[in-house]
């Protein structure tokens, strides 16, 4: 083996490369052992490769990156669950046959359609009602939920109309509460047991016990609404 050939093969005779035939590797080793120039070049390349490798790997990882990644993944999962739940809820409501509830156009539920201001947390159910009232919307916030778990309030499209929407979060589970007004929807048509359950969400309708003008369409992930209810300690 001559130096030109040896120097070509030295490119590939690296750990983990395993790119040389055994006979080639043996011939190369024999040449390097007996050729000071090639041996020196091999040492130089190794040392330089080590330094390049160290510099290549010397990338500082930003603080908090893992937390931001996990937060983003959690948001993506929630969006997926919400889209699935909305599609299922829409299909179930259609199947219930509340014909006059429906506009003669595809059902559109877009919970982030209006998100102009963030509600200041923590807040009570009365505080939520006042927040909406200050914005011209009369509503009744469900009194049995734990408002320490409230994430945000907004107005969202439901069957072509804007309605108050509250999102609660308990650990990895979420519950979205659409507040429906009897003057705008046929609440009686929605009364009954849970109207749908998927593998990852539950859809149910509940009237507001203290005010017959309002009812709640609730979509929740996880074990259902119990996780979001007020505990004896919560206010």
């Amino acid at each position, binding site marked *: 083996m001559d130096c030109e050939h040896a*120097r070509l093969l030295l*490119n*590939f005779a690296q750990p*983990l*490369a*395993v*790119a040389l035939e055994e006979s080639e590797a043996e011939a190369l080793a024999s040449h390097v052992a007996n050729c000071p*120039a090639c041996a*020196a*070049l091999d040492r*130089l*390349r190794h*040392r*330089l*490769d080590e*330094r*390049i*490798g*160290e*510099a*290549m*790997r*010397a*990338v500082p*990882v*930003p603080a908090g*990156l*893992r937390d*931001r*990644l*996990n937060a*983003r*993944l959690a948001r*993506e*999962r929630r969006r*997926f669950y919400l889209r*699935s739940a909305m599609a299922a809820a829409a299909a179930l409501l259609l199947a219930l046959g509340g014909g006059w509830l429906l506009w003669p156009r595809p059902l559109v539920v877009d919970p982030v359609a209006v998100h102009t201001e963030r509600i200041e947390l923590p807040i009570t159910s009365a505080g939520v009602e006042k927040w909406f009232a200050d914005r011209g919307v009369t509503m009744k916030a469900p009194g049995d939920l734990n408002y320490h778990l409230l994430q945000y309030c907004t107005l969202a499209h439901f069957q072509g109309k804007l309605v108050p929407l509250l999102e609660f979060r308990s650990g*990895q589970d979420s519950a979205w509460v659409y507040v429906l007004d009897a003057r705008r929807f046929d609440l009686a048509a929605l009364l009954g047991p849970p109207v749908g359950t998927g*593998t*990852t969400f539950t859809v149910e309708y509940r009237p507001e016990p203290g005010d017959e003008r309002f009812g709640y369409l609730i979509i929740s992930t996880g074990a259902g609404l119990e996780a979001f209810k007020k505990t004896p300690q919560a206010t």
Partner: protein
Amino acid sequence: MGLAGSQRNVQQLVDDHYTALYRYAFRLTGSAADAEDLTQETFCTAQRKLRQLREPSRAKPWLFSILRNEYLHRERTQRQHPQVSLDSVGELAEAPPGPLPEVEPEQLQQALNELAEVFRTPVILYYFEDFSYRDIAEQMDLPLGTVMSRLARAKAYLRSRLLNPGPAVLADAQRRATDGL
């Protein structure tokens, strides 16, 4: 369920591979912000497509492949860095006089930015050590011989570039990159 795999599996992927992925993304893009963005998009894609990962031991190359595809998709719509031709880059023939210089990470990144992606990717993966020629060939969907050739040329370029980072070399690299434009 479209979000295949459990949350725990995705969490494990993040814990095991996020630093390596970020470092790879940084060397590809040269930008911390772009690298973080790419890393996030990679894990989001992985979360959606976790069912495609049949062997957990192949998670790292799988994730690197997703990241590279995302990077290439973005590169198609963005302005490229001026890049050098490696046609006449020669390998080191002898040791330079004096001690071997230190390789500064910023200097390395500048040299990497001058390489076309088809050379930059294999050389980055090579120096991360965990990837064999065969892994790199699978990543890039190229024959092994092509990978070996590109890697040899890219390594030769880096070695000569980093040993001789003077203005004359930079000017020459820029001239080659703009020849024919």
